């Protein structure tokens, strides 16, 4: 009986010793893990920014070209000497449009790659899963690629700024256009089953009233079949269908309706209304017929013969291997331009604080068709959108432009920004 006892006492003694040693080690090492004070991602000649994008997965079809366009624009800026003599390095991580992956890659960007700021993280479900994380680490979270109203929360998330016109604005503007152009028609909504669809519907209902929407259907991105929803809309006798859909599902909705021999008037959010992308998805042969008269909201310079588009086409040819030029290209480059402008205004030696201050100053101009609405108490980029229509295979603005002013939608004049200095901002 003696031996086992001494043995177990030995275990006890060893345990105590190990615990004590561990405690000492904890204290000794405690100094190593406190956060550093210097501004991450800024060196003497490089500014590193990061993003999460759906390069693979369900949303890749519509959006994977955005980050390539942004990168091409930054190459253009870098070739002209950069901003305050620093070149911009853009680290793109694929999250497959899966929030779980977003959380991992964003941590990698912030902690391993040490980015200065996040730029244009794409998607509502994906980006909302890292919102608090970025706030906790004081990482500027600029120009989120989604129209959710979540990004406009200066109190809760002081470093987060949106880029898209929010879905409430888009829904309201499209509904207003529908009622202005075709009064007394049955207006219906097909939306994604998340914030995108809900906020868009809320915007539509601000114009039509809660019972002004004849039918409302929703879809889930995990189910690539909208036959039931389209059938329900057709049965409800819808004449105009407002779409809160991503590009892939806009094509799916239009295609499914066409198969069922139904052709209502389609009006899509800017997130799902890019004509070249839709043509690619639906096929060159049928798309021009199916999409003639297709209405969409937009807020970026997309007219076929504008000076911005001309510049972006040049950049696309030079730095993006002449990839197909579509709304995503304009979008990606516009995001890049706005970031370059913010960085230029943030001073010779930018810090995370000065970058956020530069945006909140309200002095950024951007390149949209309406003035930016950024300010200390407004973190959304656009309060209004213009209406584009596809005519003879060309998508262009028709002049109708709406802004959401509090509760009411008003028609406003577009105020395009003139192109200066070859599209490279100077402070």
């Amino acid at each position, binding site marked *: 009986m003696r031996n*086992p006892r001494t043995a177990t006492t030995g*275990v006890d003694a060893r345990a105590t010793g190990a615990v004590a040693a561990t405690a000492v080690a*904890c204290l000794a090492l405690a100094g190593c*893990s406190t956060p550093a004070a210097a501004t991450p991602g800024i060196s003497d000649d490089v500014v590193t920014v990061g993003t999460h994008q759906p390069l693979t997965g369900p949303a890749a079809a519509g959006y994977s070209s955005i980050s390539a366009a942004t990168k091409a624009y930054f190459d253009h800026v870098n070739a002209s000497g950069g901003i305050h003599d620093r070149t911009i390095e853009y680290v793109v991580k694929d999250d497959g449009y*899966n*929030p779980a992956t977003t959380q991992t890659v964003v*941590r990698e960007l912030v902690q391993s790659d040490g980015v200065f700021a996040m730029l244009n993280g794409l998607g509502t479900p994906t980006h909302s899963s890292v919102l608090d994380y970025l706030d906790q680490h004081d990482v500027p979270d600029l120009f989120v690629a989604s129209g959710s109203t979540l990004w406009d929360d200066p109190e809760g998330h002081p470093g987060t700024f949106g880029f898209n016109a929010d879905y409430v604005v888009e829904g309201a503007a499209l509904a207003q256009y529908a009622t202005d152009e075709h009064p007394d028609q049955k207006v219906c909504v097909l939306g994604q089953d998340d914030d995108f669809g809900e906020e868009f519907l809320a915007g539509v209902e601000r114009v039509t009233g809660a019972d002004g929407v004849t039918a409302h259907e929703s879809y889930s*991105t995990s*189910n690539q079949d909208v036959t039931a929803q389209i059938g329900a809309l057709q049965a409800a006798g819808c004449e105009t269908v407002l779409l809160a859909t991503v590009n892939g599902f806009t094509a799916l909705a239009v295609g499914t309706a066409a198969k069922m021999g139904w052709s209502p008037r389609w009006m899509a959010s800017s997130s799902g209304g890019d004509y070249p992308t839709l043509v690619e998805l639906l096929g060159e042969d049928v798309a021009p017929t199916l999409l003639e008269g297709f209405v969409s909201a937009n807020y970026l310079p997309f007219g076929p013969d504008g000076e911005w588009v001309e510049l972006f086409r040049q950049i696309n040819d030079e730095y993006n291997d002449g990839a197909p030029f579509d709304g995503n290209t304009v979008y990606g480059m516009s995001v890049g331009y706005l970031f370059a402008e913010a960085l230029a205004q943030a001073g010779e030696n930018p810090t995370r604080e000065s970058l956020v201050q530069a945006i909140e100053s309200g002095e950024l101009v951007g390149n949209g068709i309406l003035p930016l609405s950024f300010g200390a108490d407004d973190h959304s980029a656009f309060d209004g959108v213009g209406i584009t229509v596809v005519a003879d295979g060309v998508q262009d603005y028709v002049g109708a432009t709406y802004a959401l002013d509090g509760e009411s939608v008003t028609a406003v004049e577009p105020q395009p920004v003139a192109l200066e200095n070859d599209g490279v901002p100077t402070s």
Partner: protein
Amino acid sequence: MTTTRPAGPALRPAGRLTRTQRILVRAALLTLLAIAATFLLDPYRNYQLAVVAATFCATSGLTLLVGLTGQLSLGHAVLMAAGGYGYALAVNAAAGAGLDGDGVAALVRVVVGLVGALVASGAVGGLLGLAGARLRGPYLAGLTLAMVVALPALATQVPALGGDQGLAVPFEAVPEALSRLVVVEQWHAWLAIVVAALAVTPLAVLRSGRAGLRMRAVHGDETAARLAGVSPARVKVGAFVASSLSAGLGGAVLCLVTQSVGPGRYDLAFSLLLVVAAVVGGLGSLGGAAAGAALVVLLPWLVDTVTGAVGVPADLEQRLSGNLAVLVFGALLIVVTLAWPGGLARATARRRAPVPGPDPSSRPPTRARTDAPAPTER
């Protein structure tokens, strides 16, 4: 490592510490060691460590279930998801009821969330276990597989689960008193390690005690077990529930660390990877389960790092993204089963102790390995 070879109850005279106490001491030591290790890691590694700890909760439950009772579950991701959703619902309810502050309120909120996770995963696991006790081999595997496939549809159809977007939970910041000492990832890693210890230690106790013997008996020969007065159905359901609770805590940890739970994380590939982790680590071995969990979390990242460093062309890299890791897992599984049929745990155990002792755990698991072929069908 925790409990690779529990001491046989009848072979050693009662010392001052009982078998259970020894397990507890060892668990406490390992927990402290893991917490100390977080000081050596940078924040991103600490985040990975937290995810490993969460995965370890699931793989340890699974390895026990498959290794000891021979019940093959391909759906442990669903049990993790159940835990995650249970955590999110409970935490949000608690936050809504006034527990939305920092400090003590935050800790109480987390505990409420963990209880929610236990309730949810226990309920789902109990139901699955009841069905599983009547099913054998491939049929149970099929049932659990169907659960994984059904999860996204279920999350979309039940409004309370928040669709593809899932549910968000409040961010758990570092408590005021510790905020000068640790960053948030490290704090989360601590929480994850403690929860993992709370999840796995009971499994270790269970495994080394009578329950473990009953499980082995049922796995070895149900009729013989029944003749000896052991109820196979009860043992099987019990094992399934225990394993579910542990997986549920893992899901809760993931939810806590990432502030959200959604069907995207718990897909079929992840569920199968959990099985691969248990098999590669060595069925029935908790140390092996830990190694397997680390593999599941770190291998995709390692593969990405390597492909990034080698400088693969962008379009090829995009095509490989996500797929290459699965391929490596497959290859690893084949290599390990060929070289060490008992998994990594057996390989190291054999090197450490070449003479097999009269350890009651050493025989039945060997059987378990030979007649549990399904996991390798991946």
